[in-house]
């Protein structure tokens, strides 16, 4: 940019706008990128949609009349059914993208030093999404949600020590008049935290990605923007099919009934994206056991960069890749078994799948990666 050109009114006051065009066209990015490395961007786009539709829902949502206010949104608000569908389907799409991102992380192993933080940010996004998703599930005020919230709040007040204190602080005591209002506030606040963690993820990723140079380098625009556009079109296509033909895909059917404090459902059903976690929670007995199992389930993901013993340059062998695919099927089975009707068989399967999950990370991963690390 030549200096004799007078910068525009806005550019002289907001300098970052001045070289905006030069920067997005700067040839610093690699020509060949993996298709699925686009997933964090897809997740961000999905979260923006969730935030926009959530803003509209928050205008009409009333914690004191949770179920009725959602019925009002669905029936009376202009296009309210569609906005509700955006939010429900958006949750499904974002979770789908996050599960896919974690699966890809296990397979491609981008967490090797010095990129551990990239992986940890991904796990943090997953953990926060699980919490936000669970909070959103309680906000519906349906028959299943009510009891999930009641049990969680009661369990939190039964826990002793620091976890109990945090639980009481979070839920404000047993499920009562003010509880859903708190859940709504945490649902929104933690959703905003996810944006911050995604920004952290982007910064961590840029820090470990060396800039491409020479003939192999391309600019962000138009090379990457057009690829993002293609990803967005694919996203929109799947999204439209779901929102118009299966708006309640993977949601708990029990929640179509309003909450009833006098009727306890036989089995609590969770949305599909929470089902594997509810399966993990069933591994250990009692409330404390459930919490420990879920925290441990996320903990092994956090520890993965150090459980992988293949060394900085070790390549993943066939056996390891095979085991990752088995793990994906295992998580799928865990969710399926946890959300199928209560029976002796599904109980055994849940334990079996949950044990395999921990076995994979704690035993098989170190073993196989060190075997395959020549």
């Amino acid at each position, binding site marked *: 940019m030549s200096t004799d050109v007078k910068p525009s009114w806005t550019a002289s006051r907001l300098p970052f706008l001045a070289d905006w065009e030069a920067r997005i066209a700067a040839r610093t990015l690699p020509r060949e990128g993996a298709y699925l490395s686009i997933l964090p961007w897809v997740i961000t786009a999905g979260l923006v*949609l969730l935030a*926009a*539709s959530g*803003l*509209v829902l928050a*205008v009409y949502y009333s914690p004191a009349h949770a179920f009725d206010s959602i019925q009002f949104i669905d029936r*009376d*608000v*202009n*296009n*309210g059914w*569609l*906005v509700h569908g*955006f939010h429900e389907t958006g949750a499904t799409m974002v979770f789908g993208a996050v599960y896919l991102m974690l699966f890809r992380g296990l397979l491609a192993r981008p967490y090797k030093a010095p990129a551990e933080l990239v992986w940890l940010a991904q796990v943090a996004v997953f953990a926060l999404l699980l919490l936000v998703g669970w909070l959103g599930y309680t906000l519906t005020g349906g028959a299943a949600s009510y009891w999930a919230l009641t049990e969680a709040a009661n369990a939190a007040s039964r826990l002793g020590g620091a976890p109990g204190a945090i639980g009481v602080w979070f839920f404000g005591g047993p499920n009562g008049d003010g509880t859903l209002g708190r859940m709504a506030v945490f649902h929104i606040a933690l959703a905003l935290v996810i944006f911050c963690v995604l920004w952290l993820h982007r910064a961590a990723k840029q820090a470990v990605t060396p800039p491409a140079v020479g003939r192999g380098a391309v600019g962000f625009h138009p090379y990457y923007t*057009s690829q993002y*556009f293609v990803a*967005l079109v694919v996203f*929109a296509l799947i999204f439209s099919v779901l929102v118009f033909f299966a708006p309640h895909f993977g949601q708990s059917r029990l929640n179509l009934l309003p909450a009833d404090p006098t009727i306890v459902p036989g089995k609590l059903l969770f949305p599909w994206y929470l089902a594997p976690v509810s399966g993990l929670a069933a591994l250990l007995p009692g409330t404390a056991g459930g919490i420990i199992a879920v925290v441990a389930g996320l903990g092994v993901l956090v520890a993965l960069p150090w459980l992988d013993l293949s060394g900085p340059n070790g390549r993943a062998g066939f056996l390891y890749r095979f085991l990752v695919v088995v793990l994906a099927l295992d998580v799928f089975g865990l969710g399926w078994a946890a959300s199928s009707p209560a029976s002796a068989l599904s109980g055994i399967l849940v334990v079996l799948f949950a044990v395999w999950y921990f076995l994979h990370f704690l035993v098989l991963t170190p073993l196989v990666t060190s075997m395959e690390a020549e």
Partner: protein
Amino acid sequence: MAQTTLDAVAHGTGTRRDFLTILTVSGGLVGLAAVVWPLIDALGPDAQSDAAAHMIVDVAGIAENSAISVMWAGLPIYIRKLTAKQIADNQFVVPDSLADPADYTDRVKPGYENFVVVVGLNTATPCELEGNDPADPRGPFDGWLCPCDGSVYDPLGRVRGGPATKNLAIPRFTFLNNAQIQFG
């Protein structure tokens, strides 16, 4: 530079690329608009709130020399049917002799001159005025009287005395026919 331009035109890449860019951008904008429109539309009032904001009131049943009170937009609205004497008394009052000058025709709708529609709150102390019922105390001008600070209004809702200095506000409304008025 000239050579490059010539090449681009010669191979047709310039026009084809322009076409694809315009197509992609417009397709993207249509998709974006389709997503954003429901979100904007949903923030508008639903049918029930909209109906309440454009409330229709039946005025056929109001007896001469009395007024009804309805709530609209969070305010008490007084709808009063004037007598011939009240019209005659107020029709030719010189506006400049009033605290808040207003003509008779400013206060009523043409064709429905015997109906006065005002916000029934005193303009000095926000207090509900008395005088809707012929038996109520109405003050010296046979209009409305404030029970809180004694402000006096005539049947057209013009201030005639007391601490108040402004006439009663007139809400937005239209006569649909002889029997119905619609607010908003």
